[in-house]
């Protein structure tokens, strides 16, 4: 059994109705599951949203998370794509201290991360970065030496690459 700190990525296709997010978060809270990040947005089908959860826990916990998500009437399909060849991305906006003396240095770091400067003021820069969680973490860490004011992250969204994946929603778990 894998360690507790392991992160798993689960996606769920859900009905886009009032209260759905509440039901899902209530289930996580009640069962004591740990969500590291949660991202929600419209899916390719109108009326349906897709959620990406990054969940901490061992394999058994994640299996129970998937089963309990599946139990919710408004959840249509649940996939555990942790072990899949998947692309995962999040977007972050980072406001970092910056003046004339270090602006160049920060811009170099931003370039290396293929990030963008999207706003400049006298004392700060706003950096936009996309990438997987580790990449965003690294950039935030590096910029921390200059003083990070504010970080806004979307949470991870993920999609498996063009291969088939196994559904967790089958009856024979």
């Amino acid at each position, binding site marked *: 059994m894998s360690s507790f700190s392991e992160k798993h990525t689960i996606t769920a296709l*859900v009905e886009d109705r009032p209260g759905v997010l509440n039901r899902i978060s209530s289930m996580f809270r009640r069962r004591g599951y740990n969500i590291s990040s949660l991202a929600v947005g419209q899916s390719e089908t109108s009326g349906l949203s897709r959620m990406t959860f990054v969940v901490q826990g061992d394999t058994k916990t994640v299996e129970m998370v998937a089963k309990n998500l599946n139990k919710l009437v408004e959840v249509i399909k649940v996939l555990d794509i942790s072990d899949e060849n998947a692309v995962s991305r999040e977007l972050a906006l980072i406001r970092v201290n910056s003046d004339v003396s270090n602006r160049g240095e920060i811009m170099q770091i931003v370039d290396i991360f293929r990030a963008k400067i999207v706003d400049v003021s006298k004392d700060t820069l706003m950096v936009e970065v996309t990438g997987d969680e580790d990449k965003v973490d690294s950039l935030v860490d590096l910029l921390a030496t200059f003083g990070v004011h504010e970080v806004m992250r979307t949470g991870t969204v993920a999609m498996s690459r063009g291969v088939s994946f196994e559904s967790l929603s089958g009856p*024979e778990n």
Partner: protein
Amino acid sequence: MIKKGSQIVCESLLREGCDVVFGIPGGAILPLYQTLPEYPELRHILVRHEQGASLAADAYARITGKPGVAFATSGPGATNLVTGIASAQMDSVPLVIVTGQVNSWTLGTDAFQETDITGITLPITKHNFLVMDARDIADTIKEAFYIANSGRPGPVLVDIPRDAFNQQVDYSDEPSIDLPGYSPSTKGNNRQIKRAAKLIAQAEKPVIIAGHGIIISKAYDELRQLAEKAQIPVITTLLGISCFPEDHVLWTGWPGMHGMAYSSLALDEADLIIALGMRFDDRITGNPQKFAVNSRKIHIDIDPSEIGKNISVDVPIVGDVKEILLELNPIIEESAHPEWLKRIDQLKIEHPSLKLPQTDKLLARQVIKDISEITDGQATLVTGVGQHQMWAAQHYRFKKLCSFLTSGGSGTMGYEVPAAMGAQVADPDATVWSICGDGGFQMTMSELATIVENRLPVKFAILNNGFLGMVRQWQEIFFESSYVSTGYSGNPDFVKLAEAYGIKGIRVTDKTQVKPAITEAMDHDGPVLIDFIVEQEDNVYPMIPSGMTVNEIIEENLDQKVTS
């Protein structure tokens, strides 16, 4: 055809086969109530507290197999239902609850008697709905019934604002179900069923543990066939009691915290556990790491999230237990297991968990034994929660199928009064005995009025020990007999109380009066309440303390006199 929302509610309920509604009117739901006279086929039972409505509906559902239906108004009416809804959710009982809500344009403004009941009941319902438009009522109620009574059953709440009841809409289309995320599978996986058959063939010491699922899916015959064909002892869970006749030679009691020692030991010694429609509750397993470690396990349940939750299993089969047994039974081999059955008999002799101590005192257990004898195990028994519940489950020998109603998962005290009412409404010809604690009885005794009003001949046996008995027992064992807040010194005179309601009341203080009183109650045409003044500090044994194992079981020392 133009109809009002309230009419659509009634017609939708009738369409789903509902014939009885338990409830209390109030402002927000009044438009629905004012429509009821147009639908005389819909019998409304006016309870005295909404908790009585949800608990009565629970019992009604368990007996009939149809969802129990309850109405309540917004705010306090709806919140009073909550305990019954939570109970039904824990015990997989189908309910459809219709609550009135404040007018839609005042929602969210803290209007008079506004409560977010869908928010409140979100974690204790299988699903719930807020219907803002009368055009959605018919579909929603159809969906509510479907969700409540398919897959693993559970309560569904439908909250309807007052104006939607009055809204006039076109009601011509057949209602339809649109639930893309809900499709419970009932058919078991073939490969796993074959693996199960193989394990059963290999087992030398197999045990069946049969749960509430057998009753819900009415798999009584299939369970019996499996047990008889392979000669496997049958243990039930608490909620599985009465899914298998207890005069059957293979019946082996029920295990766990207060179950028969021989049942717990049989589970521990078994080399194969066949778990049918049950969920390895902590009251059964004790310490899950040390539970039944000598056995392989086949777990059949309709809820995938119950499989592997508390106990790891070797063969998981998700589906309806009846459908699965219909597939499994033909492919299992006939076998005998004489050695194992002999061992079970020996365990029963070495651990006579159901034997009563010799005493002249009036023991609550004696009352149950006598009711069992006089009714020949053919009554429907409804209990509250605590010592009397455990004694009822231990000492009544259930011979009638689906005849034991108790709040198992949630442990809802006060279940005994409204649930007995619901059971009698569901089956007017049944002999219904409500086994009450003096504590629980006082939580819901207001329903006595409903029982009288509806001429329900329920027989109440209050096992009156003047204590919250089970809590007192824990205080005795775990807190050095420090009886904090468990003594009921101010109990009313229950006989006078019964008489105040127009119910025949009998008091029994002596062991010799028990049987005559029970017979008198049975002969009386109408409800009867017997106040049995029983031994105050009697304990329920065997007892496996919480989180322990069968090795730590405490059994009664029958040589010792009962404490006084």
